[in-house]
């Protein structure tokens, strides 16, 4: 959580300084979801992410250096500068990609789970998505198919209250996205998404069930997007007081309070963790800034895998 927060605060700073092309969608305030879920995943398990995907990447074990380089459009980034913030992937840690299309990832996760089942590998696929994405038809086709085929798939809804500028209270037919699980005959669970241990426990149960062959689960984590939909969002659709209220429920502060109260970590030890995270991210920024931009002609590479047919057809 602390590393994700440090990464996102730095990304915001760099974006506002004009160093990042395109758009960025920050995960600040939602860190407990990615961290709580990925804590129970193996490196070989799969996740499918969203346009707000930096947190998922870091939690699944991706390198902040290569993420930062990608976000800055550099050749050393995960996608050699071809993807950017909304399209980071790290297949070496089972991170099958962020997705610029809201709801575009559901069925990719279903396919990864189907593949794991067919290959008898005991891998689990987790699909992260938002409350807004649960209104896409892809959500409903995916949950039905995952249920019918009894797939090792966990659908994790980050219910952050807003679909871009539209409040969930306006656009959802149910109060809890987890209620939609009933329609597909699978368990639906709602947890406090700002309580990392609650997320961890619910996710562990769902992931274990999936791994044991018990089929999919819809897990909903109620959380809040502290920052705008994107950096630069004028946020005319909500009151500042609402944001302040949720800030007080910051998942990191809450977990720190708990660790302090239970005597697990001292303030000094926590500060050391924060400092290490800041240091790691500063180093990632240096790496990204010192890295070269791609050669313009690199725009023509990676269109096709060339070796199977021996020739491509890009230009």
């Amino acid at each position: 959580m602390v590393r994700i927060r440090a990464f996102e605060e730095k990304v915001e700073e760099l974006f506002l300084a004009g160093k990042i092309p395109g758009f960025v969608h920050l995960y600040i305030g939602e860190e407990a979801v990615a961290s709580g879920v990925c804590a129970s995943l193996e490196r070989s398990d799969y996740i499918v992410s969203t346009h707000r995907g930096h947190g998922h990447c870091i939690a699944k074990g991706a390198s902040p250096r290569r993420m930062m380089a990608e976000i800055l459009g550099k050749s050393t980034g995960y996608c050699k500068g071809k993807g950017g913030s909304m399209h980071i992937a790290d297949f070496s840690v089972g991170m099958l990609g962020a997705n610029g299309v809201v709801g575009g990832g559901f069925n990719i996760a279903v396919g990864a789970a189907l593949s794991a089942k067919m290959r008898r590998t005991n891998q689990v696929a987790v699909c992260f998505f938002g409350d807004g994405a649960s209104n896409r038809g892809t959500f409903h086709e995916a949950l039905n198919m995952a249920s019918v085929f009894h797939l090792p798939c966990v659908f994790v809804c980050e219910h952050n209250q807003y679909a871009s500028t539209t409040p969930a209270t306006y656009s959802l037919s149910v109060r809890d996205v987890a209620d939609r699980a009933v329609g597909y005959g699978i368990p639906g669970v709602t947890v406090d998404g700002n309580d990392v241990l609650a997320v961890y426990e619910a996710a562990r149960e769902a992931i274990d069930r999936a791994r044991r062959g018990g089929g999919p689960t819809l897990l909903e984590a109620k959380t809040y997007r502290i920052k705008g939909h994107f950096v630069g969002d004028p946020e005319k659709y909500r009151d500042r007081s609402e944001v302040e209220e949720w800030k007080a429920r910051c998942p990191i502060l809450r977990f720190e309070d708990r660790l302090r109260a239970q005597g697990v970590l001292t303030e000094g030890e926590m500060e050391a963790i924060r400092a290490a995270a800041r240091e790691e991210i500063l180093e990632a920024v240096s790496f990204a800034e010192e890295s070269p931009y791609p050669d313009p002609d690199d725009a023509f590479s990676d269109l096709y895998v060339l070796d199977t047919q021996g020739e491509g057809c890009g230009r």
Partner: protein
Amino acid sequence: MREITFSQATLEAMSEEMRRDPTVFVLGEDIARQGGIFGQFKGLPAEFGYERVLDTPISETAIVGAAVGAALTGMRPVADMHFADFVTCAMDEIANQAAKIHYMFGGQARLPLVVRAPDGVVKSAAAQHSQSLESWFVHVPGLKIVIPSTPYDAKGLLKAAIRDDNPVLYFEHKALFAMKGPVPEEEYIVPIGKADVKRPGKDVTCVTYSIMVHQALDAAKELARDGIETEVVDLRTLVPMDIDTVIESVKKTKKVVVAHEACRRGGAGAEIAATIAEAAFDYLDAPVVRVGTLDVPIPFSPPLEARVVPRKKEIVEAVRRIA
């Protein structure tokens, strides 16, 4: 050489590739228990089981989406679309996901995926079961587009498509499934990206593909009686397009008709004609003529359908106009 149907040819391709590679599987609606609505999957489950020949819910979005996810994680899925018209329900998965994943992620991921889409006009199937939509996908970088016309090509190209590490759209004309043609017993592959001159000729080139190859061959026979020799170039794949073979033919005949069953406006023929104009304008002795379905939805009633869908007659007329 023995003769088998187009449908049997694709079935042999599926069986051979599934036998050769345990990661190959097929998913779609009505394919396992029913054998496919055109019988093109009949018998596969007996050898490969109901997991590798997977009947799915009516969820084209999930079929292609799941195929993408499976392809990314070590499988080689073949996704059947029932009718090509229904690829519209999986456009995001094809155009935004499959086509872009290898590129957008900087070459990290391979996507060995085939989408089979039975297309074209047959038996008054009307507006939502008769379309030829290949040109939409020609416009999306990152896909390969295969569209065979004979049992021989259907088998060899399907095998090539399954072995390809890129997403391939495989359009198969519904009226061709029952057509018989020579297919050797021994194994072979038809490489993606190579056109085939189905009939040589010196007077006019007809660039075509899929069912219109047969209409063009029939037209060429009729025209030959009047001394007009038509060269029929079957593109076989639209992306990558074997433009060299086309240009070579154009340089010889200096006159071109482009024919397809898809609608004329914005069809692949427009791309072919423009490419010829760019690459061989100085060789042309006449404007490039396009033959395609008139720009209306395919109507139901037989006389209406026949009025808008081009066949031999329209190709003959087009050739005569410039010959």
